[in-house]
Structure formats: C-alpha cells, structure tokens
C-alpha cells in the first residue's frame, strides 16, 4: 500500500536530509519508525506523503509508491485523497476559524456532496468527542484537543494510509494514550499506518506493531568533570501566588517552598498553568502574592535563567559560540569550555545555531541561559519535548551537576521518565492546585493523586517501574 524504495533526499541549503532507506508499510499494522534527532524521520514522512518532491525541492533519489501511484508522478491533491498526514505541532496545522470548519476544509477538497460532508462532519465530531466544541476557535483548544482535531480532520477524508510525524511529542500521557487508541482502531480497519516517534514506549507491546529503527550519526560524548563553585543555600518561597489571564484565574493562591540543590519536576495536564507558574518565577508574568528567595543574609529577588520550549525564539547569531557569549561583558571562558562540552556541542562551536537539529538548538538555548550564571538556578519549560534519548541523557546529567553545585532546577514536563529522575515532584490538578508534592518516587506511587489529576500513568511506565525495582 505504501512503500519506499531506497528513497534519499538532501535539502538544497541545509546540506542534511535523508540517507537511502527502504520501508514497506503494510495495511492492518502500525509501523513505528524511530531514530535519533536529525536522522531524517520528518524528511522520510514528507517523502511518504508526497510533500517531497511536490513542495520541497532538493536532490532526490529512489521512489515512493502509494496505492499504486508513484508519488512524484501524480499531483499532490491526488496523493492526499489516498493518504493523510498529522504533524508534530498541532497548533501550527490549524487552518480554520472553528473546529467544524477545520474538518469541513478537507472534505470540501474531496468534492463531496453537501449531505455527505454533513454526515462525515457529524461522525468525526462524535467519534473524536469534539461535538461540544464545534464552534470554538481551534487555537483556543488544549494540545491534546488540537491533536485530536487534526486527526479527525484527516480521518474524515477516509484515507487508506495515515502518516504521523511525532504526534505524541506535545501531549500529556492521557491525551497520548487516547490518541494511540484511535490509531489502533484505524489500523484494525485494514488501513496502513506509519508513525515517526521518539516516545515509542506508548506503542511497545502492541501486537500489530512493526518497529523500524533508522540509523543516526549522533554519538554520545563524554561528560566533562565539573568544577562548579558551590552556591550558598537558599529557599524559594512562593506565597499566595495568583495569576489571572484574561478572565481566567490560572493560578489560585499557590503556596510552595523549594530548596537549593534540588531538581523539582512540575507535572500536570495541558493547560493547568505549568508554564504560567514558571514565568511567574522568572519574573516574566504579572502576578499577585509573593515570590522571593530567602538566604542566611535575608530576602533576595529571585534570579533564575529560563529555557523556553521553543529555542527558535532566541537564535540569531552566526555561530554557537557567539550565541552563547552574546552581550556578556567578561565571559568566563573556562566555564564556557566546560559548558559547551557538557552540552555535547563542542564540534558545533562555529556552526550557525539555526542549522542545528531541534535537540541541539535546545541545548544551545540552555547554554546561553547558563552562560549568564543566574544566581539561583534554572527554570525549564518542557525540556525533553521532541528529544531523543541522547538529548535527555545529556540534559539530566547537566541538571544534576547544577543541582549538586547548589542551584535550584525547576522544570515542567509531560515526560514521566524525566520527572522520575527529579528529586521532587509536584503534581498539579485540573484547576492548577497542588494535588501531590514530595519525593518523586512517593508521588509516582500515589495512584489516587494521579487519578485526581486526570493524568493516566501508562502501563509501559508502571511496568518499567516494577521491573526497575
């Protein structure tokens, strides 16, 4: 049904792409493609859908066959009748002003009769539990709802094949598990399904799974020994913090105390206010209540560095070195050398950051924050989003080193494996309230708290914890 034969592609400016690969996606099975960041997963997904060569131009060799059509020989709209594609960032693929218009858009393009469009629209709204939000603006939905809508909009077109490029990366565990259930139903109908994903744990053990691992050029670098000077101990006191965004009170009278030398993970469903909390700690969000740091010498204004979800917000210099040293009057070059090595970026020191893979860019963004040596520590918003295992390993080693040197590291995450490596875990409920707070292990074992938070602890995660004991 969907077959790639020694397909290879190279983007004209960027110099990287996809090395020759063959893939056969059989109907009725879920084909999972994994591989390290930058190995060409997204490029292969585009080749399978026909977006390469129809939208992207570059050096291409090999061929892709979709339902008997060679993808480079038929127009894009004809390929889109046979296959659908769901992308990594759900917000970026929303085209219409309302949920129902989002679904109608693809059905109009099929040239269907009015009644048929109505029938398919209603079915999609019902099947994907979107009927109650049909008139809402897709941009106001949560990440999980948006990804569900993206899938509904594609599946309403009734394609024979479905291609998904990291659809789970921005979802919490509940939304990710729901999505997998929809995909299993799709494959069970004898359709072809290929999924490119780092978070393959959600699919491991499925009977219909066919796992393909792509080779990557990433190699693990040695972590340099750290010689960071120890900081004075301090406490971060959050007292009656409340934040209102528009008419919605996102954080209501939150009291927390955090200590230097800790890695704290904040976990909660999409939209409960995790990022708003981080922004408040960084001084970027107008808020009520107080956030202050207490030391042996008295209270101080918090001084944290913050690493954002999207590294593209900050990259503009001509090299990684310039990016990390930008506007530092007297940079500590000894610290710079250690940091760039700890981040595994030594060989990219003179490379423009915009040419790096997403994972590498995230590490540069982390590096430029750390080069400023914030007095109290680091705040990270979804640091493992879309990252492969190597990036996560580098990240955790670095965070542990910083915490050992007396810094406070606070991160928001959907990644339960990452959260389990933190010292402390704070679980937020649907209204942004603290449901559980304590040692990571203890909170992860509190199944009642997880149920209350609306976050599902997936089977693969529970199995992994049982086995590790």
């Amino acid at each position: 049904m969907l077959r790639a034969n020694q397909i290879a592609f190279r983007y004209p400016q960027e110099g990287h792409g996809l090395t020759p690969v063959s893939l056969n996606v059989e109907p009725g099975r879920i084909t999972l493609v994994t591989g390290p960041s930058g190995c060409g997963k997204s490029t292969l997904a585009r080749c399978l859908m026909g977006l390469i060569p129809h939208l992207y131009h570059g050096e291409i060799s090999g061929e892709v066959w979709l339902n008997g059509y060679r993808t480079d020989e038929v127009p894009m709209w004809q390929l889109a009748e046979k296959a659908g594609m769901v992308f990594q960032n759900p917000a970026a693929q929303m085209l219409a002003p309302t949920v129902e218009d989002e679904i109608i858009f693809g059905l109009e393009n099929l040239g269907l009769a009015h009644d048929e469009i109505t029938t398919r629209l209603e079915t999609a709204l019902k099947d994907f539990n979107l009927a109650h939000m049909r008139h809402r603006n897709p941009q106001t939905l949560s990440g999980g709802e948006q990804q569900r809508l993206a899938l509904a909009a594609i599946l309403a077109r009734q394609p024979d094949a479905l291609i998904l490029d990291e659809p789970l990366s921005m979802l919490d565990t509940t939304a990710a598990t729901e999505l997998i259930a929809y995909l299993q139903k799709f494959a069970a109908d004898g359709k072809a399904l290929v999924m490119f994903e780092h978070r393959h744990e959600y699919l491991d053990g499925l009977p219909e799974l066919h796992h393909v691992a792509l080779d990557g050029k990433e190699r693990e670098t040695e972590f340099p020994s750290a010689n960071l000077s120890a900081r004075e101990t301090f406490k971060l006191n959050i007292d009656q913090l409340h934040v209102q965004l528009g008419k919605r009170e996102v954080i209501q009278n939150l009291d927390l105390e955090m200590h230097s030398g800790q890695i704290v993970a904040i976990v909660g469903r999409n939209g409960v206010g995790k990022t708003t909390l981080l922004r408040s700690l960084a001084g970027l969000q107008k808020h009520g209540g107080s956030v202050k740091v207490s030391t042996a010498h008295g209270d101080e204004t918090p001084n944290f560095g913050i690493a954002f979800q999207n590294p593209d917000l900050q990259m503009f210099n001509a090299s990684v070195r310039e990016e990390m040293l930008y506007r530092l009057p007297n940079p500590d070059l000894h610290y710079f050398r250690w940091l760039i090595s700890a981040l595994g970026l030594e060989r990219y020191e003179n490379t423009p950051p915009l040419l790096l893979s997403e994972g590498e860019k995230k590490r540069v963004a982390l590096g430029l924050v750390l080069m400023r040596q914030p007095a109290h520590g680091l705040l990270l918003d979804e640091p493992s989003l879309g990252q492969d295992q190597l990036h996560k390993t580098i990240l955790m080693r670095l965070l542990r080193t910083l915490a050992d040197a007396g810094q406070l590291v606070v991160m928001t995450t959907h990644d339960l494996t990452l959260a389990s490596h933190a010292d402390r875990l704070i679980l937020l409920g649907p209204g942004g309230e603290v449901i559980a707070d304590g040692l990571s292990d203890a909170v992860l074992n509190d199944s009642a708290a997880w149920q209350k938070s609306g976050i599902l602890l997936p089977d693969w995660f529970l199995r992994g914890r049982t086995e590790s004991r």
Partner: protein
Amino acid sequence: MRVSPAGRSRQLALVEDSPLRHADPRTKLFLSLAISLVVMTSIERLLIFLGVYVLFLLWARLFIPTVEHIWRLKWVLILLFFLDWWLISLDHAMLICLRLILLTGVFALFFSTTNTRELGLALEKLRVPYRYAFSLSLAFQSLGLLDDEWRAIREAQSSRGALPNVSSFWKFITNVGDLISLTVPAIVLTTKRAWAITEASYARGFDSPHRVSYHSLSFTRLDLLLITGTINLLILLFWRW
C-alpha cells in the same frame, strides 16, 4: 454583550449578538469600502457622518469593541494630532485623526462580525481565485498568532539580556543593529509557521480541482436595507450642498 472566545489575547473577538453577524460578508465588505470612501470628504461632512456612524455602531452593538480597538492607537493618534497641528493647522490635525479613527473603526466593524472563513467565501463569490481568497483569509487569521510570537520573542530575548535598548529615540537609532535579535527569530518563526500551514493544507488536498464550497452565502432583507441605506448616505454626503 456575549462575546465568543477569541483565539488569543489581542485578537478581535467575534461579537455573536451583533445584528451584523447575520449580514452577508459581501455587504459588510461594501459597507467597509463605503466608509473608507467617506473619509475623503471634508471635515464638516465627516463630523456629520461620524454622528451617523456612532448611532450605527450602537445599533450594531459594536460601539465598545470599536472604541477598544481605536484605543490601542491612542499614542499614534495623539502624536499625529499634535504633529499636524504644529506643522499644518488644527483643522488638518482633526481631519487626519478623524480619518484614521474611521478607518480603524471599519477594520473593527468587519472583523468583529466576520470570521476568516466567511471572508474567504465572500472573496470567492466576488471572483477572487480560491487560492488567493484562502491565503488572504489565512493571513488575517494568523495576525493574532504573529502578535503572540512577537511578544514571546521579546520576552525570551529580554530574559537573556538581548533585547535592544530602545528606551529613547536616540538609543533606538544608535542600537538599531541590535534589532537583529528580534527580527531573525521573527523571520524564522514566521517562515516555519507558513511552511507548517502549507504542508497541512496540501496534506488535506488544498490544490484539488474538485473542490466544492460547503457553506453558501445569500442576501437577506437586512443586506438590502444596509446596502440601500449606505448608498443613500453616500449620495447625501457627496451631493453638492
């Protein structure tokens, strides 16, 4: 007033209970064009029109959203007013500001009562090729997102001390090169968003020659009233009296 949820904080929200929400978008385009034409008239007639326009906005339950929208331009209006008064005359300053207020109001009037799908459909019915009508409606839809991204970039750069110092005009001029810390990320994000939307639309058969329109437009008595009323008003305003 019942206001539907807007996409983002600074996006214009649809005023669902405005009578104009039920008018054909082509009528609203005509209204907008007519008002844009009226701004070319003299200050006396413009003041008369302003009175009629305020009554119309009150009837359409759009007075508050329009004022809020114009309020965002307050500093531009104040600067313009005093510059024109100083350089030319008070009459001229008033005329220019009134024109700008009316034109800004037109934008609010149209986008508070028309969503981008309706705009695209209206353009299609006016024989604008679908590809362009779709692109234009998508561009308007993305305005709020671009605004959010711009703010996110400013925030991210300020958190690392890379925000250009533009606290005064002189500092802006001397540090203009530093604006690169804002412009490069803005270009990168906009390009990425444009590509993401292009991919998503092509993956759903955007360029299909078999495309049909699910929604349709039809003129009602309200449209007829609005169009004839506007034409009469135009005749009155431009009549030699």
